[in-house]
């Protein structure tokens, strides 16, 4: 990172994921937090910053305060991040910003939901979004609708095929089959994708991410402090954020996300370009988001994402392994938190069977606002 204090991720943890009846979001988040503190080899009182993602269901007015109290710590920096699918990656921006401003030194970032456990249970509310009056009366509720509109337009403008979206699903499932902490581990084929039922056409079931319970946590501190800690530090080399819009309906084009600006900013800060990237953990709420993000990051030309994901190019052993943990599509949907923990695992070279050989630089993406808001992280192995 060019400006300010160099920061690193020194602790990382995931809970088990899947359908975990009887477990609450708070319980899962606290478990992840405690494991991350242990992983970092830190006394809990050295955590002086806490950033919490706002859960989608049962949001709280101050989740970071609640987490701090239950962990028995009194941080000098607390904040809650909403931003839906961009929220996890955005927590790292928040943590690094607070450290560089001198407000705190060591920040715990935590996210997680009890999404399946919540079904049928009374809710204290949910995070609403602006403009629902112009969507819900038309039967347009449910995340697949907006993303499918973008996918349809991508198919129209660039000739992208459903089978190419299927290649993303196949790659993620293959990677999840190598990940002991994944919800869906049975490999699938393009044919399985093509014969899965339509949800919101052009989306088939296997274009859609999972509904999951689970949590993840990471700890960010200065690179200097990281030197005294047990785990190989993972350097926060670059970060970028971009906001084009919050509602897809009213904006054009809808086949380009906010990623070009976010990635350009993050790559410039890190002093790398797409060719330097060894693997990518890309937010994959639906398969075409991976296709568009690959284009918008410059891994291929605009409109060439469909061809790029074919022939195993984004699988382990391929040109650019993507979502080495299985992603939201096959590992679990924990709001992108596990894209970060997986990048940390890869850059520590602790990924076992699914390790990317010689991984030095990885990117993580988060996005929300119906493709309009994007966060990019460029992370690097120790000693780069």
């Amino acid at each position, binding site marked *: 990172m060019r400006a300010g204090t160099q920061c690193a991720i020194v602790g990382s943890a995931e809970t088990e994921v899947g359908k975990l009846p009887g477990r609450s979001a708070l319980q899962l988040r606290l478990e992840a937090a405690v494991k991350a503190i242990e992983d970092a080899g830190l006394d809990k009182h050295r955590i002086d910053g806490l950033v919490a993602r706002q859960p989608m269901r049962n949001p709280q007015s101050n989740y970071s305060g609640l987490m701090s109290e239950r962990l028995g710590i009194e941080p000098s920096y607390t904040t809650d991040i909403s931003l839906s699918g961009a929220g996890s990656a955005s927590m790292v921006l928040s943590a690094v910003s607070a450290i560089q401003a001198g407000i705190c030194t060591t920040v715990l970032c935590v996210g997680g939901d009890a999404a399946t456990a919540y079904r049928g249970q009374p809710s204290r509310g949910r995070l609403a979004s602006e403009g629902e*009056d112009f969507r*819900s*009366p038309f*039967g347009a509720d449910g995340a697949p609708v907006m993303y*499918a*509109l973008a996918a349809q337009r991508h198919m129209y403008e660039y000739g992208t095929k459903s089978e190419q979206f299927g290649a993303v699903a196949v790659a993620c499932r293959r990677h999840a089959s190598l990940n002991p902490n994944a919800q869906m581990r049975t490999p699938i084929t393009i044919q399985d994708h093509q014969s899965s039922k339509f949800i*919101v056409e052009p989306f088939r079931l296997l274009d859609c991410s999972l509904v999951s319970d689970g949590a993840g946590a990471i700890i960010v501190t200065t690179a200097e402090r990281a030197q005294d800690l047990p785990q190989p530090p993972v350097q926060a080399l670059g970060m970028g954020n971009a906001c084009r819009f919050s*509602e*897809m309906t009213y904006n054009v084009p809808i086949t380009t996300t906010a990623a070009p600006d976010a990635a350009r900013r993050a790559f410039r800060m890190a002093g790398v370009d797409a060719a330097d990237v060894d693997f990518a953990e890309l937010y994959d709420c639906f398969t075409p988001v991976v296709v568009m993000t690959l284009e918008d990051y410059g891994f291929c030309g605009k409109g060439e994402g469909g061809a790029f994901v074919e022939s195993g190019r984004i699988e382990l052993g391929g040109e650019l392994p993507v979502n080495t943990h299985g992603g939201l599509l096959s590992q679990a949907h924990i709001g992108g938190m596990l894209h970060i923990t997986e990048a940390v695992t890869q850059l520590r070279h602790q990924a076992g069977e699914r390790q990317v050989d010689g991984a030095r630089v990885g990117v993580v993406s988060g996005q929300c606002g119906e493709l309009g808001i994007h966060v990019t992280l460029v992370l690097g192995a120790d000693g780069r």
Partner: protein
Amino acid sequence: MKAAPRRPLPQVSDIETKPFWEGCARGEILLQRCLDCSAVRHPPSPICSGCLSSRLEWVPASGNATVYSFVVVHRAFHAAFEEDVPYVVAIVELEEGPHMLSNVVEVPPESVEIGMPLRVCFDCVSDEVTLPKFKPA
């Protein structure tokens, strides 16, 4: 027998959007036009996002549009729409420029395509609420 779940309806008394829904009830789509820079916009907002003026007037749209993108919903995410599947949700491009989310009706879903010319039609769903929908022109 279980009562059918109620369909979500817009809050037609919402301070920003009330004139829009009143227009629909009269059979017209109203758009906001900026009195300072002439930009025409949707959805309704307190200010022009181009020049930041708050001097906006309501102007009727022609009701002509085209399909910008569309999807066919096979699995309804709100129980009230289960009886409608498969149905079409589309981003439509109004002749005046702004886009809207709506349904394309009175046509089999497999016949809908991007660029298809549309004409507005109004679906009166309650005493207070009328929704603007579109059918092939």
